[in-house]
């Protein structure tokens, strides 16, 4: 009787907010969110992130809990964000919207599971490996053209695509959240996109995690 669905789920009707995370997962090779995380954290990480020697080396460090990123890795992440969301004369870039600090707060906060955090953290290491293997240099040392080539290579694996989709999602949050969360300082993202926020706006003691 029932037939396998072929369409992707659309926008949620009536409540209208969409369910971006699910659709993201769906877009990414029809694997669901945690199936990725499970695979990315297991020995098959090599298959998902095939160019990274760290992933190929085995599960040991990728199954560890979300390790702390060192200063160099934060610089790598900042460089990725700046490449994905560059500043321009009339529009804010990743640094202008506090994207790195915003992501730091998300990784330190209660929203994500440990394996979701580990996936974001480990992705930085995998990216660094791929950059070195492809170019012989650190990602941060590459010019824009080389960065583009490396990131497009990352995107070719489904885990890499999911990782980049995640980084972009938190850039959008930093761009368009209420400034009370630390992104979108003085509404710079809203102003650029002529977005009119709703009211009343949240005071600092009534935001996610404090309600």
């Amino acid at each position, binding site marked *: *009787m029932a037939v396998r669905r072929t369409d992707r*789920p659309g926008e949620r009707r009536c409540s209208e907010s969409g369910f971006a995370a699910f659709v993201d997962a769906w877009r990414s090779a029809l694997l669901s969110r945690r199936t990725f995380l499970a695979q990315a954290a297991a020995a098959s990480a090599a298959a998902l992130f095939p160019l990274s020697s760290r992933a190929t080396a085995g599960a040991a460090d990728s199954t560890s809990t979300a390790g702390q990123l060192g200063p160099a890795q934060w610089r790598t992440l900042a460089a990725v964000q700046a490449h*994905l969301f560059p500043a*321009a004369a009339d529009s804010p870039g990743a640094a202008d919207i506090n994207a790195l600090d915003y992501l730091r707060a998300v990784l330190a906060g209660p929203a994500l599971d440990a394996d979701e955090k580990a996936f974001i953290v480990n992705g930085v290491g995998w990216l660094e490996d791929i950059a070195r293997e492809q170019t012989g240099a650190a990602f941060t040392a590459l010019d824009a053209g080389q960065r583009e080539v490396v990131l497009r290579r990352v995107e070719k694996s489904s885990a890499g695509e999911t990782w980049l989709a995640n980084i*972009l999602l938190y850039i959008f949050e930093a*761009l368009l959240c209420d400034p009370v969360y630390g992104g979108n300082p003085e509404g710079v993202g809203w102003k650029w996109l002529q977005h009119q926020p709703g009211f009343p706006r949240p005071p600092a003691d009534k935001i996610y995690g404090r*309600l």
Partner: protein
Amino acid sequence: MNTDFDVCVVGSGAGAGPVVLTLAQAGYSVVVLEKGPWFTDKDFYKDEIACCRRSTYTPSLRDERHVIEDLDDAGEWVGESTHASGWDWWNGNCVGGASNFMSGFFHRLKPDDFRLLSAYGPIEGANIADWPIGYDELEPFYDKVEKVVGVSGRVVPHPHLEPRSSKDFPYPPTREHVIAGWIDAACRDLGLHPFPVPRAILPHPAAGRRGCEYSGYCGSYGCASGAKGSSRAALIDAALRTGRCKVIPRAKVHRLVSDRSGRVVAAEYFDAAGDTRRVDALIYVVACQAIETARLLLYSTGPRHPHGLANGSGQVGRNLVFSAGGSGSGDFPYARFDKAKAEALKVRGPFVNRALQDWYVIDDPALGGRVKGGTIDFLFRHPNAIARANSQKWGEDGLVWGMPLKEKLEAYFTAARYLRFEVFCDWLPTDDCFVSLDPQVKDKWGTPVARIRIGYHPHDLKIGRYLAARAEKVLVRMGADNVHSSVSAWPPPNLVAGGCRFGKNPGTSVLDPDCRAHEVENLFVSDGSFMPTGGSVPYTWTIYANAFRVAERIVDQLGGPRKA
């Protein structure tokens, strides 16, 4: 009998509020056990992160999840937990339930929806059944909802307008966006009959609530003004003022305890600290939304109920229905209009408030003759900025980033307005759409979670596509670009009913025509679970109306209004 309360209500959403208010006003003591926290109007802000990007009004999927069972490519039913998929099935777990976050598109069912089998005949593979009551019996309660919850609108005759006992709505329509007039003009050019969508939103202050403040963010958000007719703002707050209602938030009822006679003798719940507690009452009312209601009954086995409370027929959880249909949209580039019109189009706040029910019944040889159709509602794309931006990161060949992404975002946000439509048609009940208890996955309290098989009937897609194609023609007539739609068989988790059918036959239904369990004389179910078929409109108005009807039966069973 000496009990803690006269009536114990499990849940506090649309199925609960009318019971709570009616019983408290009739002089009975009522306890409301709500799993989630208790937010008030003062806790609701237009905060996309809290509202829609994180689990603030719903449980974390780490703690509480569902298992969704779908067909795999090999034709086997395979379950996947929502924690794994990220597909969140919670709709609002707090005092007032999902009604806090509804858009309040309020449509009544039509008389034919109460007799789908007799009016349209059987469909192979679908468990269609007539309701044991007719529209006439529910009409006074639809009317009561208009007045008590507060429904704003304007009656405009159209071919499928249902009979009404009041001439018009007690509240005039909420303010309308200029595009409503454009929709009207296009529809009339096409020979159609657009009408203003009734909304459970107060246009002006009344009943101790403020009127709508037109922030432009309604669906998915809690209402800060109290204008939205949530069960909390419109009913439970009023019940509390009687002094006979007690709400216990963070009280997760996991089991209704029954004795050897089969009667319910206690509701057992975990309190905020995780300790097990019990309350008892003369009558128990379950209203946890269809899926959780079925789960609670299935888990509540007892000496006379070995397969779950009131489940001697094996019908608990069966014939779950959603709303079939889909949605579509069209673009209105500002550059197409003169400055004044473009500025009018940009205005945020007022509502679109237009619907079409010209095809509520379809008589078209292409569909094999006279069949049940549905409703088309028009609305703007939701203003949530992060969700909108996130939808722009996918291009034809994967992710878009860098300057191309920024150009795409800027064009998407600043160059056009997007008018959407939503199609609502019957989700036919089938043997492949039901709730059971998952054999493995448990919630944080160690109770089995609901496992939901989401099979559907292909007929639903046929009707949905028929309606979507006609809605597209309206957008084309309006001059929209990029008109497209998507009709899918993915169930919308927020538009759910059935699972505890009401009927006259205890062998084929769980509840009697008064929504009392056939097998348990002091147990009522007052949420959308009772519906044998769902109709072709969102459910909330019908749930409210039926819960007011059930509340009167409960008052009768308790001996009528208690004298002061």
